[in-house]
């Protein structure tokens, strides 16, 4: 899998992991096989990193949290009973770590946005947005991205998470409910509310 492939995948193309092979790797890793665990990390690192990045909007923080997530997951492997997929379980660890981190960061009053490589010039969605529908045509790519990130940061953590998992990463409602340990109705209502909020924040750029 190439870098960012998972992040680019649309909702319909989220691949279900091979459960048997995954469980074999989990068992090996549980016995202390770091090579097996390395393989598990490589399978999910891009999606885990992307989720954390879209929540924090900071590469360094996302890097630290992604590493800590995988270390914590390895240390807690014995408590993994296989009730959900390993992927969902790791996602849950990442989400909890990120939300805790964001709460601490909010208390410290620190927030920084930094910029990752953005290679979307040829994306048809972007072309449509910038050239056809945006009233301020000179806003351009970077400004839209900046405003989008700022608007995301204004959402509460649960709302930002739902938007990240569904609209950015393309996960279905059922999987998000499993990760967030809530029911599907809650996921839907949070998603609706979060979109309304974002729509309001980005009104000048989207209409």
């Amino acid at each position, binding site marked *: 899998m190439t870098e960012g492939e998972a992040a680019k995948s649309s909702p319909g193309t989220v691949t279900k992991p091979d459960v048997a092979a995954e469980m074999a790797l989990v068992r090996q890793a549980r016995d202390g096989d770091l090579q097996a665990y390395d393989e598990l990390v490589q399978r999910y690192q891009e999606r885990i990193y992307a989720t954390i990045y879209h929540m924090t909007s900071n590469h360094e923080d996302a890097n630290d949290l992604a590493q800590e997530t995988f270390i914590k997951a390895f240390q807690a492997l014995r408590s993994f009973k296989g009730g959900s997929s390993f992927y969902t379980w790791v996602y849950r660890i990442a989400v909890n770590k990120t939300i805790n981190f964001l709460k601490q960061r909010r208390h410290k009053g620190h927030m920084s946005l930094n910029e990752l490589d953005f290679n979307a010039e040829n994306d048809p969605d972007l072309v449509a947005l910038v050239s056809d529908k945006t009233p301020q045509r000179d806003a351009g790519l970077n400004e839209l991205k900046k405003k989008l990130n700022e608007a995301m940061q204004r959402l509460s953590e649960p709302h930002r998470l739902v938007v990240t998992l569904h609209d950015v990463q393309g996960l279905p409602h059922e999987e998000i409910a499993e990760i967030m340990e809530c029911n599907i109705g809650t996921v839907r209502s949070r998603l609706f509310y979060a979109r309304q909020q974002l729509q309001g924040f980005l009104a000048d750029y*989207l209409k």
Partner: protein
Amino acid sequence: MQQPEPQFDDLRRALKLKRHEQPPPGYFRSLSSQVITRLRENDVHDRARALDAASWEAPWLTRMLDFFQGRPIYSGALGAAACLLLLGGIFYTSAPGPAPATADMQGLGTPQNLTGVGLAVTGDGSAGANQLGALPPGTTLFDKARPLQSAPVFSSTNLLKK
């Protein structure tokens, strides 16, 4: 079935653009190796912490290990001594020893006989390691304790009389 919400189409298209935000090139090649390196370091640190804890709780052990470290002759001698001790123990336990003196003890099984032994000790005053012979004949330890019985007894009734 998930219903599309047309009022959010533009927003959803804009959010999809975030998928294009990528970390520096080659980042994912190093992430997993960094995780594995940190896990290995944690393992090493855990062992070091266990050694530290052992040296804190049993300093004599670390001193002994330090002493034997770099002294192969002493270590060899200690090992040989331990082996000899073990072999001696095995030899000693497997060799047929003298028959236990159960025949002499058989008569002591009943409580009556045991009380007889007790009386004999206190009676002649010359038996065993208790050295009761040091007491004058006809006296016992209870006789020595008797003066204590005349000590004043404090009770609430005595106090009230005063």
